């Protein structure tokens, strides 16, 4: 299955069969001389919603940077819709983990979103009719019409997150890379963001990579899980990946997976692994 999909990826966009959204073939990634991922194989089909999990430093952000072409593979290959990743790829929408430094500005939401419309071009920031329509569409898609006229400094974290999502949708990407969009949000905003991304993913039929700490928030929305740890990765359904055997390998210590009233708890001898991660963010 993997071999076949990799074959498809190599056939390129003009191949008979559509290339997978992402194809990782023996992919190794290093950052500052440290190997973050070593020899990972994974194939993600167009239209899949993938939840990406793993302890801090497991390489979630590094993988996204590699997909965006910000980081070259140390070994192996990575293909995005059959092509080598490159910066400025219109197929990839991105919501960065690092929060933009604009929280205290009085700039209105619409101008903030619009700044990302073909912002890489030289010249004056004139949108044109097509640009205005696209910005309106992105804002409407994330249901942020009411936020467009309001200043950024008056928006809540969840509201700002919706504008960031609108920016990621500009250019109508086929692949949405969302790096920790739930961090520092209140629980009910977390559910709202997940529901929103799920709806957008279904309506537009796009591929989503959604990194998060708490897997439970994405249960029922994501199609498959990509779990990273100790340079390795496991890709599969929740049932396949969330087992004591797989996670013990990824964490490098004995891990128990408990199922409690529909929730999945990842526990080590030291305590709940996910709770640890949350405390780290708070």
């Amino acid at each position: 299955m993997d071999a076949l999909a990799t074959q498809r990826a190599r056939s390129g966009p003009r191949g008979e069969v559509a290339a997978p959204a992402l194809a990782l073939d023996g992919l190794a990634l290093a950052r500052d001389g440290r190997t973050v991922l070593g020899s990972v194989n994974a194939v993600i089909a167009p239209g899949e919603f993938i939840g990406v999990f793993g302890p801090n430093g497991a390489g979630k952000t590094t993988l996204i940077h590699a997909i965006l072409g910000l980081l070259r593979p140390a070994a192996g290959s990575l293909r995005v819709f059959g092509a080598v990743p490159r910066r400025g790829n219109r197929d990839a929408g991105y919501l960065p983990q690092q929060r933009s430094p604009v929280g205290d500005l009085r700039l209105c939401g619409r101008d903030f979103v619009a700044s990302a419309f073909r912002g890489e071009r030289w010249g004056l920031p004139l949108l044109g009719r097509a640009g205005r329509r696209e910005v309106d569409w992105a804002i409407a898609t994330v249901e942020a019409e009411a936020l467009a006229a309001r200043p950024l400094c008056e928006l809540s974290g969840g509201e700002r997150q919706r504008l960031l999502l609108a920016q990621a949708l500009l250019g109508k990407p086929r692949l949405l890379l969302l790096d920790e969009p739930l961090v520092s949000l209140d629980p009910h905003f977390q559910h709202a963001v997940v529901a929103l991304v799920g709806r957008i993913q279904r309506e537009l039929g796009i591929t989503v990579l959604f990194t998060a700490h708490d897997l439970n928030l994405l249960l029922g929305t994501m199609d498959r899980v990509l779990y990273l740890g100790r340079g390795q990765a496991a890709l599969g359904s929740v049932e396949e990946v969330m087992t004591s055997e797989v996670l013990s390998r990824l964490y490098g210590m004995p891990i128990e997976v408990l199922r409690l009233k529909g929730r999945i708890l990842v526990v080590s001898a030291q305590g709940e692994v996910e709770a640890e991660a949350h405390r780290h963010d708070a």
Partner: protein
Amino acid sequence: MLDYDFMRTAFAAGAIVAIVAGTVGVFLVLRNLSFAGHALSHVGFAGATGAALVGMSPLWGLVAFSLLGAAAMGLLGEKLRGRDVAVGIILSLALGCGVLFLHLYTAYASQATALLFGNVLGVGGATLRVLLALAIVSLAALAAIARPLIFATLEPELAEAKGVRLRLVSALFLAIVAIAVAEAAQVVGVLLVFALMVGPPAAALGLTTRLGHAVALSALLGLVETWAGIALAYVTDWPTSFWIVLLSCLVYFASLAARRIIALGSEGAAFP
């Protein structure tokens, strides 16, 4: 007042400088680079006095050294973030060098006051033409990089992923700031460039939520403050720079008050 040639030149020079400083300043404030702008003006002071020492025009010395300072800041890039102490020490060194050059060049002492605190009434026809040329160059350059500059300012991570060359855009912008600082120093002096490069933009950004409006309003506020300052100086015989700085300060604090009133008004509108 407009019967005098030097007054007409002063109003023209003030208008050119206020528009450039107000426009460039909006991006300076958005990028949290106010202090860098201040530092560049001090480096420029050393350039201006150094140029006078070797018999060159202080304005070109100011432009050249501000540009060099901007290039150094561009090269250091992100490493400068949060290094206010290091920048502050370098800028005091630059100011100190300027004092030394002035000491060695004893020909005329009024030069020091003019450079430090500005002398818009002393701007001649030749300087006015240079100011206009520099204004056109810097505004044209700003127009050329405005789009990636705004993107990189508001969303650096996303901009980088989309192919914006952050270092290049940042370095080009600092060069534009260097020219704007050199211009502003002609009116209010190197020590008071904040009055034109930070005051009006900060007030404008607090009063409007649209970026385009903020740029226009900032240039307009700078223009009104400068012209009113020159007129008040003519009437009172007090220094122009004092009036401009005072007006810049008053407008800024008035904008803070207005902002609070706007906020109260919009809260009322949100819950009718």
